[in-house]
């Protein structure tokens, strides 16, 4: 198809020339008239007829192309034109020409130049065959006439292997002309002067000799000029359709009357529209556009009349406004002080916490820029804004009171230790001599001497003021507890060693008292009461044998189980011992004057840890692992049970007035019980860092001390007021930490000097220390 189009175009280009020639030859009078104005339009442009004629000739030219398909019709048309009845055909022609134009324009589409050249060559070759004979004289159209070969538009190399090149109209093979070899070609090239203008027709294989005109044409095409050399590109413009309004009609026919009369239907339509516009039902496109413009974007007005007035409106329930973002500190500056920049270690740490960014101390890496122009956009800015948006609509909100207090504020306001003197502040004496841990210490009621019992199976009696060991008494077993008789008129020490309780006369101090004590203990009183079997199997009283008498032991009370603790009643006649393994006979009360023992409890209430006599009332405190029971010894009944809420009680001590009890526990706590107040502790103190081994109240001063496995003795102020409404005041005063640590043990026992504010402590480091 493309090929055809190209050929057509060629024809079109060539034709005007021919036409002119024809015109010249025929020299028809009318024709001359027609063509003249084209050649030099300056002659008579005003002539109306002339213009009409030219019109016609133009259209006739177009009509010739039409002939490609319609065959003879074209020739007739030409003749008609030539016969020259103009006026009627004008309109038709102009119409047809208008129809035709787009088609012809379409034909002029671009095609690749290489192909066109060969095709033009073909076309030219065909047209050249009989130049003198005009095409239109032929019965056949130019296209059909050319094609001798009927194979159509196929690549000719398909016939390369055959002897023929196609088929002619009679279905006979078109035999390829004999093809000479190269020598022939060469010879022809030498001999034939027209060799250079000989072209081979690819369709038929025939050789065609190009004429001079053809060569000129090819040259022009090759140099991209218009093929027709006579065509003037710059012809003066002829204004065919003049913009000037003519006074006279071009047509002869007058307009119809109805074209002057207004249309009724149109009028109706218009009036309807006008009415619609008036009523605002319809809008002009401008109005619509303007409205759209105005509608676009929000409208703002004075929403709030004043700054603070509030219109009553339904709001969301109990609104909680979102907290504001933190404002930046120095570290976020583009040019921070140098110390805010990360060093290598900090950088590493920051990068390491990539997966848990909340743990970083800063959510960004501080950077320093030399000048403002170097500061880039922050890479996480968008993300941060997005997260804030998420927080605003997704984060659950609640009103919380944020504590903004100083830690100091939580420490209760207590009087300064300075105002609560005297209390021991320094270590002033160390008593050395024991070779194993010292379990227990007890001070003489007058405060001159002191006794200690140790795991090295000895009891040592010391002079307090000098630190001299006066006497060492060997016993046969580990000394668990020593207790000096609180009665100053007796000089007796109770020593719990193994399962024996020894009553020792230390033979220090007033000679008279020593003598008196010896006399008292020498003879056993007559027992008129017969002990029952239960007591007999548990305890045997005996005087010490001579060997022991020399050491000072006067009475030996042998128990059936190892004794853990011994404690005196305030008057010095009764003493109580504790045997944890004794089951329901674990607590015993011995009466010295009658050399008699009692078992106060028939049932075991638990593992008894320690016992204690009330200083004033006939009450007896028994501490099991968890609880403390207070018994009335006269009425023989349980008065109270104190709930310690601790795991394991280690020791207890009672205030000299008898209303407050201090309990130490192995779970680091000390409990202060106000016996009048409640069965629950009035105060729980966690002063120590490790198990508390023992506590002791001072007899005179409002002081108490506690010793613990963390090697510390803590002296505290424990003031009890006579006014019942006033609560006891407890102030920790001083931590005395001079004992050394041995196998997890620190301080084992603490005891106060009866008169002075001095405290003794025994430790696992085989020493006894005095703090004053």
């Amino acid at each position: 198809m493309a090929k055809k189009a190209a050929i057509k175009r060629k024809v079109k280009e060539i034709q005007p020339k021919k036409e002119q020639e024809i015109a010249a030859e025929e020299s028809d009078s009318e024709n001359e008239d027609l063509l003249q104005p084209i050649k030099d339009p300056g002659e008579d442009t005003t002539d109306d007829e002339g213009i009409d004629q030219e019109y016609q000739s133009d259209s006739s030219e177009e009509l010739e192309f039409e002939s490609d398909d319609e065959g003879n019709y074209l020739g007739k048309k030409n003749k008609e034109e030539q016969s020259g009845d103009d006026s009627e055909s004008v309109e038709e022609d102009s119409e047809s020409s208008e129809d035709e134009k787009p088609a012809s324009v379409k034909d002029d589409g671009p095609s690749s130049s290489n192909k066109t050249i060969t095709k033009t060559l073909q076309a030219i070759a065909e047209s050249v065959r009989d130049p003198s004979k005009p095409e239109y004289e032929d019965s056949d159209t130019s296209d059909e006439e050319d094609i001798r070969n009927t194979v159509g538009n196929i690549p000719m190399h398909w016939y390369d292997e055959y002897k023929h090149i196609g088929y002619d109209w009679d279905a006979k093979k078109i035999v390829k002309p004999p093809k000479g070899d190269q020598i022939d070609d060469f010879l022809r090239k030498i001999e034939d002067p027209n060799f250079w203008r000989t072209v081979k027709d690819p369709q038929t294989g025939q050789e065609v000799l190009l004429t001079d005109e053809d060569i000129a044409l090819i040259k022009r095409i090759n140099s991209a000029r218009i093929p027709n050399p006579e065509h003037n590109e710059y012809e003066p413009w002829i204004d065919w359709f003049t913009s000037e309004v003519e006074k006279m009609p071009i047509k002869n026919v007058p307009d119809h009357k109805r074209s002057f009369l207004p249309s009724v239907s149109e009028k109706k339509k218009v009036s309807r529209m006008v009415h619609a516009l008036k009523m605002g039902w319809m809008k002009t496109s401008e109005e619509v556009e303007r409205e759209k413009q105005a509608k676009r974007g929000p409208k703002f007005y004075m929403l709030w009349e004043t700054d603070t007035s509030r219109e009553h409106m339904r709001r969301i329930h109990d609104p909680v406004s979102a907290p504001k973002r933190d404002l930046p500190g120095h570290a976020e500056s583009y040019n921070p002080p140098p110390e805010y920049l990360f060093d290598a270690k900090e950088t590493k740490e920051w990068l390491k916490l990539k997966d848990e960014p909340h743990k970083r101390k800063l959510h960004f890496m501080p950077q320093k820029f030399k000048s403002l122009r170097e500061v880039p956009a922050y890479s996480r800015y968008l993300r941060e804004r997005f997260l804030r948006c998420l927080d605003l609509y997704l984060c659950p909100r609640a009103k919380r009171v944020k504590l903004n207090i100083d830690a100091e504020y939580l420490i209760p306001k207590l009087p300064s230790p300075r105002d609560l003197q005297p209390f021991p502040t320094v270590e002033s004496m160390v008593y050395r001599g024991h070779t194993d841990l010292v379990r227990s210490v007890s001070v003489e009621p007058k405060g001159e001497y002191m006794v200690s019992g140790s795991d090295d199976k000895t009891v040592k009696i010391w002079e307090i003021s000098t630190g001299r060991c006066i006497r060492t008494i060997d016993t046969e077993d580990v000394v668990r507890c020593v207790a000096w008789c609180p009665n100053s008129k007796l000089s007796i020490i109770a020593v719990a060693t193994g399962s024996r309780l020894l009553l020792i006369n230390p033979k220090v101090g007033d000679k008279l008292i020593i003598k008196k004590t010896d006399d008292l203990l020498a003879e056993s009183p007559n027992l008129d009461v017969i002990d029952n079997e239960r007591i007999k199997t548990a305890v045997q009283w005996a005087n010490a044998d001579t060997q022991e008498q020399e050491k000072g032991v006067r009475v030996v009370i042998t128990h059936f189980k190892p004794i853990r603790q011994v404690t005196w009643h305030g008057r010095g006649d009764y003493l109580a011992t504790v045997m944890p393994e004794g089951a329901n006979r674990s607590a015993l009360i011995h009466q010295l004057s009658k050399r008699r023992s009692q078992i106060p409890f028939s049932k075991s209430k638990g593992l008894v840890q320690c016992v204690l006599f009330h200083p004033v009332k006939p009450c007896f405190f028994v501490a099991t692992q968890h609880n403390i029971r207070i018994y009335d010894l006269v009425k023989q009944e349980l008065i109270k049970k104190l709930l310690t809420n601790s795991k394991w009680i280690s020791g207890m001590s009672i205030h000299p007035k008898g209303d407050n009890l201090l309990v130490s526990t192995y779970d680091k706590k000390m409990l202060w019980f106000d016996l009048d107040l409640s069965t629950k502790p009035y105060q729980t103190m966690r002063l120590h860092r490790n198990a508390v081994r023992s506590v002791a109240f001072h007899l005179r001063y409002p002081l108490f001390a506690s010793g613990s496995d963390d090697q510390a003795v803590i002296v505290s102020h424990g003031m009890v007021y006579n006014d019942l409404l006033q609560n006891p005041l407890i102030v920790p005063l001083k931590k005395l930490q001079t004992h050394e640590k041995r196998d997890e043990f620190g301080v084992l026992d603490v005891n106060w000097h009866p008169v002075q504010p001095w405290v003794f402590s025994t430790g696992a480091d085989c020493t006894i220390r005095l703090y004053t």
Partner: protein
Amino acid sequence: MRRPKKYESGEATQYISRRAALRKLQLSLNDFRRLCILKGVYPREPKHRRRAQKGSSEIKVLYHSKDIRFLLHEPIVWTLRDYKIFAKKTGRDRAIKDFRNLKRRLALFPEIKLDHIVKERYPTFIDALKDLDDCLTLMFLFSTFPSLHLIPREQSNLCRRLTIEFLHYIIASKSLRKVFISIKGYYFQAEIKGQKVNWIVPHYYPFKPQSRQEVDFKVMSIFVEFFTIMLGFTNFRLFHGLNMAYPPQFPSNMLQDSEDTFKDESSFVSDRIAALNFELLRTDKVQEDEEDIDIDIDMDLLEQDGDSKRIIKMKQEAQETARLRTLFKGLKFYINREVPREPLVIIIRSFGGKVSWDSSVFAGATFDENDETITHQIVDRPSVSTQYISRDYIQPQWLFDCVNQRQLLPTNKYFMGESLPPHLSPFVDAKRDTYIPPEEKALHDPSLIETHAQSDDESEDEAAAEEDDVDQEALDAQLQLAYQQETAEYKKYGDADGVNEDEEDTDEYLEEEQSEEGSEEEEEEEEVDEKTKRLQAEKEKMSVQSGKVHKVNKRQLHKAEVDEHRLQARMVKPRHRDLFRKLIREKQSKEKEQWLLKKKRRNIEADAKEAKKQAKRDARKAAAAAAQAAAQLTK
């Protein structure tokens, strides 16, 4: 009577899970999200989660059931449903290619109206101002956005318009208070009707394509949808409060929303800035002097009201702001083209300065570079080819520091090409108990700078003296110097020394307390202490001491003090113990941080000093070598 069932009353009925809320409102999750953002409904944290969730202990998103009931009556819920219908119908039209109907429907797109929501969320104007921070920050970000899939051009354009209007208000009302260049952007703080409003303008150019997991622009766009309305109404009221016309009228060539400006990003930005450089039309002719008079009257009133601390503080603040308002009055700034103009224009114009830039590059310039009346030229490059002698060439940080300190600082530290002093944040509390860099301390107490300088000089002298001690003459000089120092010191601390030795106990005690509190004074004291120590050392070297005073072991004393405190701390009530421990831990970490910063600073300073000394020594050596060479030559 029927026995009430579990979870029929109380906390379980107060809260409603998101799922239940969706079912109740008959909305999709997306619509619900949109509704929550627009209405400002947020999840609540119940007091007892388990009870609120009817026994289940997993963490659910809970809303207050009253809030959800409140949403039920919201008219925009119907609009959201209309959207759904709209999408369905237009989709159908498109599918069957019924374009006439489609066009008709598109024209009838259901618009959401948010005016009533603004009023409802912010019943008073002050409420709106309080909540302006997030709004402004997001709008400033959006105003720089290109046209995105989820963010239509109109939205970013509206953001741009509204933010510029807001900035105009800030300039006209002179309400800017603090400015700060952070690595994230420029922080501004303004005080509007007693409310502090902060916002961030990001460094140019903030937009980067983000993955959906990182940033969901749709959510942000919904926020902006509401914020534009809110800021619009706020602007309206603010402008009317200043008797200015709203919407503001800009010169015709400025701020045209033509297609060109949208296409060309740079012209878009430059227009935005240019608009800021013009006075706005006022509805009345108020002179600026009048405002000043107002302030004076206020001051008088304050003066009458006694001298309580608060009044004094207020007075000071008022004075400062008065000074700030006219900070740049009469100054003319020229901004070089490498400097980011927007923040600078806001700052300069809101404090009364005049500003311009290269008219050939950006629009909106008011005067040229060769104007002789320019007082400051802001440059951000190491050197400029043509310099005028009549003006200071300064770096942009000067403006920011001036504003934060409410005074015109000396420009010598900020000259072109100088290495700048650190830029400090104005938002930190001056009396906080964390680390305070020496630069900040110097701001509050200018005397500190001098002491620093002095001590530096002295130490340098000392160093020099040490080096020259081979020289006999130098030794003499040193002796003389030491004597002078000694006498000076005696004069200064003569009487103080006596007191010190007597009351060392109490002094130490005080010092301990101060160190624990981590107060500022301790720093000073330490400095003084160091100085005295050094002088003391010198004194000991030089002179013979007569007698020895009993010295209390400071360490022991300190230890005793600490022990006592610890014992007391053990008496904290059991119910406060955890809190106490937490507070102590926080305090310790804070102290550690402080110590770390201090140490770093000390190291940095020591290094700098060492480098300086080394340079000096090298110079001296070189000079000596040169002198030797010269001497040889003369021989």
